[in-house]
């Protein structure tokens, strides 16, 4: 563990404590942190806690709200919390996109043709992703599919001949489909259970949480995820629960935020999700 990560964690905690009401209250009886051991003594934060206190209590009063990102499906208001980013956070968000797109960028000798397939439930999240992906200035399309529009989906695949596909929808929509042009498929939260698609060698799965956003990526239906250690710090709680701390989200800090999986940390940038914990998600 590098000193720079510890410095970032100390800074994140200090800022959250001074600027964000919910953390001010949570850390009221906690000492300042100087080590990872101190850090691991801070309270764990669940989404239900943040949803209960509300948005204003969980954002910094000193940052300017820039945009929201919608990572969940259509919100169930009881536990819904939007993710907010300041302008500085948006830059880091792009670093994160570049991290996920690395497998494509590394091998890209010519512009890729990106197709996003989504459904009614994930449409806004897919649109946000599309807005980010326009950064590459590659041909990009978005299609909202359903079981009733499988023939249209098939015709769009033949028309557009995508090389990269983001599937932010029920994976069964693509069953029996595919196109020889396709080289990379990105799915979301499939965790070891990616779709079977003809012609495809590489399927990447992005682990995404409504509040933490996209956080890690796995290859070829693996349970082993890799993350950018300059942007996230992962640890596990006593019960093996995976905890994430965002090192960049200044407007709406997430510190020791509990994800709905148990996992094993393998290195400073990899963890393996316990398949048995998926039943509870």
């Amino acid at each position, binding site marked *: 563990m590098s000193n720079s990560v510890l410095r970032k964690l100390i800074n994140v905690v200090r800022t959250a404590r001074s600027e964000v009401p919910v953390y001010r209250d949570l850390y009221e009886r906690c000492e300042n942190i100087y080590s990872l051991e101190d850090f691991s003594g801070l309270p764990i934060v669940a989404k239900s806690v943040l949803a209960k206190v509300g948005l204003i209590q969980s954002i910094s009063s000193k940052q300017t709200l820039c945009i929201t990102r919608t990572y969940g499906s259509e919100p169930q208001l009881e536990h819904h919390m939007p993710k907010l980013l300041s302008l500085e956070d948006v830059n880091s968000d792009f670093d994160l996109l570049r991290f996920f797109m690395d497998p494509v960028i590394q091998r890209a000798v010519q512009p890729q043709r990106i197709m996003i397939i989504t459904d009614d439930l994930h449409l806004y999240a897919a649109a946000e992703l599309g807005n980010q992906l326009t950064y590459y200035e590659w*041909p990009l399309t978005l299609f909202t599919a359903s079981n009733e529009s499988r023939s249209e989906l098939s015709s*769009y695949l033949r028309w557009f001949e995508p090389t990269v596909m983001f599937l932010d929808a029920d994976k069964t929509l693509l069953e029996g489909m595919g196109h020889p042009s396709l080289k990379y498929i990105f799915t979301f939260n499939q965790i070891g259970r990616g779709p079977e698609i003809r012609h495809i060698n590489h399927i990447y799965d992005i682990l995404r949480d409504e509040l933490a956003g996209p956080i890690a990526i796995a290859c070829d239906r693996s349970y082993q995820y890799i993350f950018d250690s300059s942007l996230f710090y992962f640890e596990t709680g006593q019960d093996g629960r995976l905890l994430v701390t965002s090192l960049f989200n200044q407007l709406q800090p997430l510190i020791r935020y509990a994800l709905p999986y148990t996992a094993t940390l393998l290195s400073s940038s990899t963890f393996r999700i316990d398949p048995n914990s998926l039943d509870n998600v």
Partner: protein
Amino acid sequence: MYEPSLERASLEQIRKIQANALRRYLVAVSARIPNYADKIVAAGLSDPYTVEDAELFAIFSSLPLMDGKDYVAIDYAALVATDRALYYLESTSGTTSAPKSRYVTVADDSLDQQLMARSLSAFGLKVSDRLLTVDLGDLNFHSLVVKGLSKLGIRDSIFYSLRKPFARAFADALSCNPSVLMTIPSILMRSMPDLELSLRKTPSLNKLVYYCEPLDISFERYLYREFGIESFSLYSSIETGLIGAECSAHDGLHVWLDALFIDLAEKVTPAKHDFTQHDGVTEGSLAITTLSHLGKPTLRYLLGDRVQYTQAPCLCGRTLPRLRFVERDTDNFSIYGTKFSFRQVYQYIYNEEDVSNFLQIVVSENQDSTTLTFVLPETINSSKNRKKERLYKQLGSQPGFAFLLDHNVLNIDLRFVESEYFTRRKIKRVTDKRNPLNT
């Protein structure tokens, strides 16, 4: 609920619905935004349920108008009131003025979807239609279009993000054979004439829905004449959401009066208008009150658009009033007391024989004189001298211009730029560098 029959109700019925919506809205926004509550109480509308409809409208129309600065000023109060009901946030780009954000709640989004469905219905879309949205990157707007289409039972729509070179990318997009194209006019115009062949090879395309910008009438006629494409306008703003849509009668845009309260500031009777069905036309600066959006509510919000308005029923059968966009308020400028408008100068430069094209006017001054720089696309540079000669002739025939030119206090300059300049970002049609706030 998506309820098309409402659009054919009598104006009295619609006004009744609007009055009840306004009462609910006044109570709701008073509880959410202290600044609004002060205004509403001061106007005597603290209990709008005690006031008759006509009086309610009259008193409400006396409330102060709000502008962009007022809109930004309620940012925090609106966020506190919205809190975790916030679903997503829409932002203006901030290229033509300070960036503004609208907070959208789940309920607001639901209303937007209904209004989008009504707009798409006004365009006469069918279940068998294939809609292609071509944009530089705003996928959020397309998402709303998809939700609206879904309410009409239309499943076949796709978004295509344009990149350079535009004409080639546009051709790539059109090869999916859409029947309806939804795009920003300047992107389409910029892709001409290279796109002509692709349009001829896409006989399925019969409708253009345009948004964000007005479509030049000569370009609209050209699309219909050459390619059989019928154009429809969709009017919306980030701050207020959807405002209105053009129907197949093409006699203005129907405004969603049951969901909006429309005011015209600086109201006048125009000397000229293009409505065929009208019962008198008024012109003014459009102010919008969204009667249901509570994430970031507006109260007589000035959009900065000058419109003409009539309440006469339309040939399509809808009874909802209609408006026509005239120009942006900032499209007018004055030199030594003489008033000019972008529209007027545009007509001088692109007369009717020309295919319409781009123009930006930059007003600047030094110690002795004012300079009007007309920024034009490089593609017409070959006719520079002819354009300049025509400009001098036509401007010189206007008494105000003639006086300024004769006394050497006004200079005219033409600057030619790559057409990319006009579409790479949203630019102001008139940039007045005499006012440091506008630069």
